[in-house]
């Protein structure tokens, strides 16, 4: 059978992708990549209508049977079957006529096929209720749950299938459903369009083609390449973590470090093409791209400007000295970098504020492509202050013609050790017991790198 061949081909393609990427990690199957496909099949009276020298139900039976065979060959997919309108005659107007005929299990092909064989359409069309029940048809656990609704009519029991579909999606139970209409009139198609991805077919050939396309989308992962461009717009930037969010679910769908593969190209990622993505590339600052739609069966390339350079901060001291980094013209601290480390930043200009005493402010430091900008500060010296009594006062330094207080002595601590950058400082202080301002004393100290100056106040 031609169709079966195609599915086998699909399976092979799929396992190829797997074996190439995951050899080293034998047990690696992301539960998010396990797919459960639930066919929701119309068993109402009208399915008996003739179609292409056959009938709608006969064509549906034939095609679904072969699909059941194909899916049984897949390691990462299962199929289930729910039918509605097939138990009570339409004259009974049974709006509860819906049943899970083949639950999800590993080897349910026979059950599915047998059920299809014996199926006789007779009833009405309770789509909303059936969708509602679908929610419990999927076993618990993280998995991609897909509903494919095959129907030749719209809701006939007054339910609101669209609201239910939306609710199930927002609860994370199912992905956006697929709906195949069999000869649905245009005038009522909007009733089905709102449930999910809707397509009407008018003959069995296009029915087959549409089902194949849906399964292709659902069961293959589409290839995606993220090109992180340097200033020359070449995709050479790499080793950056990237987070892909499912726009609808608002959760993290994938997280990958960007790599360059053996061929020197950005590595190909296999992503689920059904969902829309937001992407964060965790450079500093991070860059984002929102509402990314992927084209199935196509190598998608997403290019982003991520030109980076490095900033190296060095100090002869080993202490946990930090530097606040801010993009120029922005108010907020972008990143806090420790001294004696090197970090990458997007190319551009940054303001630095080094938390030494006194603080060292550096404006407009340029980070440029593939270059390392090095900021070196001199070793600090130490000022040891011994206090005879309770002292009010602090350490001052001259900056732009004014004296700035950079340190206030801790009032009831009698010995303080203060790391200061090399330079000239002035200590202005008064003992608490001296009540006159003129008893204020001044001491000038010169601090040199790696030297300790001891003073007594």
């Amino acid at each position: 059978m031609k169709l079966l061949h195609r599915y086998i081909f699909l399976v092979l393609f799929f396992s190829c992708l797997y074996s190439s990427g995951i050899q080293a990690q034998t047990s690696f199957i992301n539960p998010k990549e396990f797919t459960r496909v639930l066919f929701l099949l119309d068993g109402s009276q009208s399915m008996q209508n003739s179609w292409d020298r056959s009938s709608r139900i006969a064509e549906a039976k034939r095609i679904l049977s072969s699909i059941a065979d194909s899916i049984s060959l897949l390691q990462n997919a299962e199929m289930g079957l729910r039918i509605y309108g097939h138990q009570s005659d339409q004259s009974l107007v049974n709006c509860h006529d819906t049943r899970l005929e083949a639950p999800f299990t590993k080897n349910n092909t026979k059950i599915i096929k047998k059920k299809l064989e014996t199926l006789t359409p007779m009833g009405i069309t309770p789509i909303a209720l059936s969708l509602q029940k679908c929610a419990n048809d999927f076993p618990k656990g993280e998995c991609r749950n897909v509903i494919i609704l095959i129907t030749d009519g719209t809701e006939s029991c007054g339910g609101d299938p669209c609201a239910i579909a939306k609710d199930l999606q927002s609860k994370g139970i199912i992905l956006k459903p697929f709906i195949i209409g069999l000869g649905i009139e245009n005038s009522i198609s909007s009733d089905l369009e709102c449930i999910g991805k809707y397509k009407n077919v008018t003959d069995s050939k296009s029915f087959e083609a549409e089902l194949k396309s849906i399964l292709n989308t659902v069961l293959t992962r589409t290839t995606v390449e993220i090109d992180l461009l340097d200033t020359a717009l070449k995709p050479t930037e790499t080793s950056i973590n990237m987070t892909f969010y499912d726009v609808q679910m608002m959760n993290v769908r994938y997280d990958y470090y960007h790599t360059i593969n053996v061929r020197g190209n950005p590595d190909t990622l296999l992503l689920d093409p059904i969902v829309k993505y937001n992407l964060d590339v965790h450079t500093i600052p991070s860059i984002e791209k929102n509402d990314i739609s992927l084209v199935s069966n196509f190598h998608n390339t997403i290019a982003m400007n991520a030109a980076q350079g490095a900033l190296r901060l060095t100090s002869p001291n080993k202490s946990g000295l930090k530097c606040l980094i801010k993009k120029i013209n922005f108010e907020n601290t972008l990143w806090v970098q420790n001294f004696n480390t090197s970090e990458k930043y997007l190319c551009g200009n940054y303001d630095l504020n080094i938390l030494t005493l006194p603080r060292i402010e550096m404006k407009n430091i340029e980070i440029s492509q593939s270059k390392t900008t090095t900021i070196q500060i001199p070793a600090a010296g130490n000022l040891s202050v011994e206090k005879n009594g309770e002292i009010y006062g602090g350490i001052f330094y001259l900056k732009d013609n004014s004296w700035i207080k950079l340190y206030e002595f801790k009032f009831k601590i009698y010995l303080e050790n203060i790391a200061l950058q090399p330079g000239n400082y002035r200590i202005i202080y008064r003992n608490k017991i001296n009540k006159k301002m003129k008893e204020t004393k001044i001491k000038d100290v010169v601090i040199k790198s790696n030297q300790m100056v001891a003073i007594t106040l």
Partner: protein
Amino acid sequence: MKVCYVTEWCHIIFVFLNHIKKIIYILFFLSFCVAKNVFAQQHGSRILFLLDASGSMNQKMGSKTRFEMARELLYNLADSLEKKKSNVEIGVRVFGHQYQNSAHNCEDSKFEIPFAKGNSVKLLKRLKQLQPKGYTPIAYSIFKAAEQDFPLVQSNTNEMLNAIVLITDGEESCDGNPCAAALLLEKKRISLKPFIIGLGLQDSFIKKFNCVGTYFDAKTEDGFKWILKSVVSQIMGNTTLQINLLDKKGDPTETNVELTINDSYSHQLKYAYVHSLNDKGISDTIKIDPIGKYDLVIHTLPAVIKKNISLNPGKHNIIAADIPQGNLQFGWIGNPTPMALSQPPVAIIRQANLPEIINVQDINSTNRYLVGEYDIEVLTIPETEFRGFEIKPNELKNLMIQAAGTASILFGEEGSASLYTTQLSRWKKIYDWGNVSSSTYEINIQPGEYDVVFIPKEKRQSEYTQTRHFKILTGGVTRISFKQ
């Protein structure tokens, strides 16, 4: 006991008379050359007047000539000083009086009257014999005065106050450079604090004295009196200043804060104090030089600055500044892990919506801040931010952060790793190890849930990326392993 840190300083007062369209311009240029204690009791002072006797001084200024006016001013100054201070010695150097204009003599300058006590009458008598006639070698005269007239100022014998008062009507006419003369004084460890007093002086003239002078207005007789009073007050040291630091209610109860007082013009630091309240709880009074304008910086957090303060010479001056303060205590809630304790976070304090950092406060410390709102960034991982944190008058506000826990992460092999927190459903990088080795890494993190992402080195496929979700509790160590 030292009163003021200024080791040596010096003012030149330069009295300058001019009469253009009946406007009087006065240039005071007084130099006090004092070693150390400016306002301690001086055992003796020397005041040298530099008097302009150039040809232009013959011009009439009302009923008198400029020279007569200058003589009068000089006599009045000398007389006032002698009356107020018994041990003041006065001397006079005159220039432009020995040679006619036609002689173009630029070295016409002579130390006419040596320093002596009770000199004023004698001085007036001698001055009456002089006839203005020649050039105006101002710079040369300052130079000579500094070099020859004063005995050597020794920095340790600091009880002597030396001053130069220059009275002139005009511009340097000998291409001398008053700035260079000023520089010489500075080199002799004497700093200048000159004043130019006048109105509508030619710009070029003012500029020439820019390096040494501050400009003053004195177009009326009151101007003269002010100058007279200022000079005398400065020499006598009887101008006082009280700085009231007001709390929220407007009461002067705030204290124990450092004050620096700069010359508004030169920006040089003139006084530095730690404010105090005396036994009666009143702001302590300091003596201050009344000449010139000052910028007062009150070193609260943030600093409060009062610019261009003018003083009333010979009087008690009161300046008030609102510096209501409150206390900010920065601490931990709960007990951090020992490792978090050894790497305590700091709080970066900024005034609300302003970019400048005004303080970096250590954990478990308390600092005073002006009443108001602050934006505070605590450098924890991830950062803890407080916006619009309010400091209230005389209250102790607590800035508390959850004590950190520690994540102990075993990567098991070399690779790259980074750490994420979730903000508005998206991951935000909060730490990046860059390249890691196979050993265990410890990092202090605030309580919460995080994701750490790792990819082994030399794997050229992103599929090898691994993620671990973990939870941090205050004081707890969470162990994470990427080892298979």
